[in-house]
């Protein structure tokens, strides 16, 4: 099965299964190798790289929530040039396309970084993270600048502004839209008693983003692919997004709680075999899953 997850322009980005990890959840490519079989996934999306180095956030970075978590890491990374240098060997050995998640703060800064990305053959595409604080004009100029590179460009939209930004960013040159970044929220740190802001993850955000995906699918040009991301914790969650019009999905923090879930979703959507729990003994694929029975076998 081959799925093109960007619109047909100069470049294509083909994946064998429409499932990939969301940026920030599985690292830059040298982690999770013991726990995940990357070959089962459609693509690998890296942690965020910024043009200049970013330091980790100070204070509390993780607040457990009811059935979820608030995360504020500060997106620490050594800067784009060092990220490419440090991880390009790992990317070269990756059996699936590597999508670099890039955060640009200005179009001018971004333009200077594009040759580095174009030169790195290991990077198949770029996912540009649009900051929650960007206004429409800033976001459009960032996408327009990034679309000058010689690789497919995915734009990941902020949760609260995605309705307003989707069409302008598509017009500015995005080859696909990723809907959406996890919404921002605020929660009280039980240890320090302070209020902390960060991104909210968990199954509860899926209904909100699912609605957004369905709504934007009807409004956006048909040829513009949507990759859905947010709150996917089961194969059914992923199928719901595909039904709403997404061409592929990104699984976020479910991987932290249950790493094999990512593979399980990929298997379910990947044209191999869909199964459901039947009995009581673990199988080799999915330790927490008991005996399984085939419920659907898709043509490959």
């Amino acid at each position, binding site marked *: 099965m081959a799925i093109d997850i960007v619109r047909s322009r100069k470049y294509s980005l083909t994946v064998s299964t429409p499932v990939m990890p969301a940026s920030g959840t599985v*690292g830059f490519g040298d982690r999770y190798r013991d726990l995940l079989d990357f070959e089962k996934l459609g693509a690998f999306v890296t942690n965020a790289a910024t043009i200049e180095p970013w330091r980790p956030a100070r204070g509390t970075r993780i607040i*457990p929530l009811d059935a979820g978590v608030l995360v504020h890491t500060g997106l620490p990374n050594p800067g784009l040039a060092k990220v490419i240098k440090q991880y390009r060997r790992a990317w070269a050995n990756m059996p699936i396309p590597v999508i670099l998640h890039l955060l640009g703060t200005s179009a001018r800064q971004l333009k200077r970084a594009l040759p580095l990305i174009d030169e790195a053959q290991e990077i198949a595409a770029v996912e540009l993270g649009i900051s929650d604080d960007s206004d429409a004009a800033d976001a459009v100029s960032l996408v327009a600048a990034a679309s000058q590179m010689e690789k497919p460009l995915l734009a990941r939209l902020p949760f609260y502004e995605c309705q307003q930004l989707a069409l302008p960013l598509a017009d500015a040159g995005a080859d696909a839209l990723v809907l959406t970044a996890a919404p921002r929220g605020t929660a009280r740190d039980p240890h320090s008693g302070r209020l902390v802001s960060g991104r909210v993850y968990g199954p509860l955000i899926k209904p909100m983003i699912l609605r957004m995906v369905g709504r934007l699918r009807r409004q956006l040009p048909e040829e513009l692919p949507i990759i859905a991301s947010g709150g996917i914790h089961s194969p059914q969650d992923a199928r719901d997004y595909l039904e709403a019009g997404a061409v592929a999905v990104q699984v976020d923090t479910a991987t932290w709680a249950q790493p094999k879930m990512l593979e399980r979703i990929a298997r379910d959507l990947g044209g191999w075999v869909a199964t459901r729990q039947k009995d009581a003994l673990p199988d080799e694929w999915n330790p927490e899953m008991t005996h399984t029975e085939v419920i659907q076998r898709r043509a490959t």
Partner: protein
Amino acid sequence: MKETQAYIERIMRVNRGHQRLALAVDHSLSSMLAGQAMLVRRIDKDYEAEHWDPYLRELWFPVEIQASNIVIVERPARTHYLPGQLFSIIGPVGKPYRFRQKLRNILLIAYNTTPAALLLMVPPLLAKQVSITLVLMGSAKQYESNHLPEEVEVLQADDNLTWPDMVMTLGWADQVFVLVGQGDEAGYFSDIMQLMRERHSDIPANYVFGVVERDLPCGVGACHACVLNLRGAQKLQCTDGPAFDLTELRLN
């Protein structure tokens, strides 16, 4: 590191506040050393759907490892467990503690947390005739220690963070491990370093280690939520920790 399953073979109530769970684990976990931990998630075999509360895996430090792949962990008594309960485990997480070769006296400090993350080192160190002093500070004073081996000297610090024979225990210690609770780790470590500096004109490298036990989302170094700033480098609690030389750790 791998993902495996474990089940509770036995539950032992050790005092009013804590219980110990004997977990039957995969072979790969029975060779864990002091400092290494497991990321644990309960599995409900009775339900087909996944349950996502609690969401993140819990960080469990073994307090004892017995033959036949039995790992003992210490959990609060208020949490209800049942024999036969299943868990998904990612581990081992982290690096073992590094001890000095000629270690004779070790000082362990638990500050605003239970000392569970320090207890796996106790049996092997006692076997090597190392004297162990455990100081409980802040809320750690509520920890009942009567189930610990008699050879471990347990002291309670007062509200000024001083304890009986403090000058002697600090002077004699060849190595110090300070475990702090979540929250204001930088402040807690600063308190301890202040105590050390008042008694040592020069604190050598690899002498006083800070042990961090923050919640770990991924445990494999992917999410970067546990990055710590050390002099000249950034390290991860999950893959490089949990113990860091306090003279290297940047506390602000």
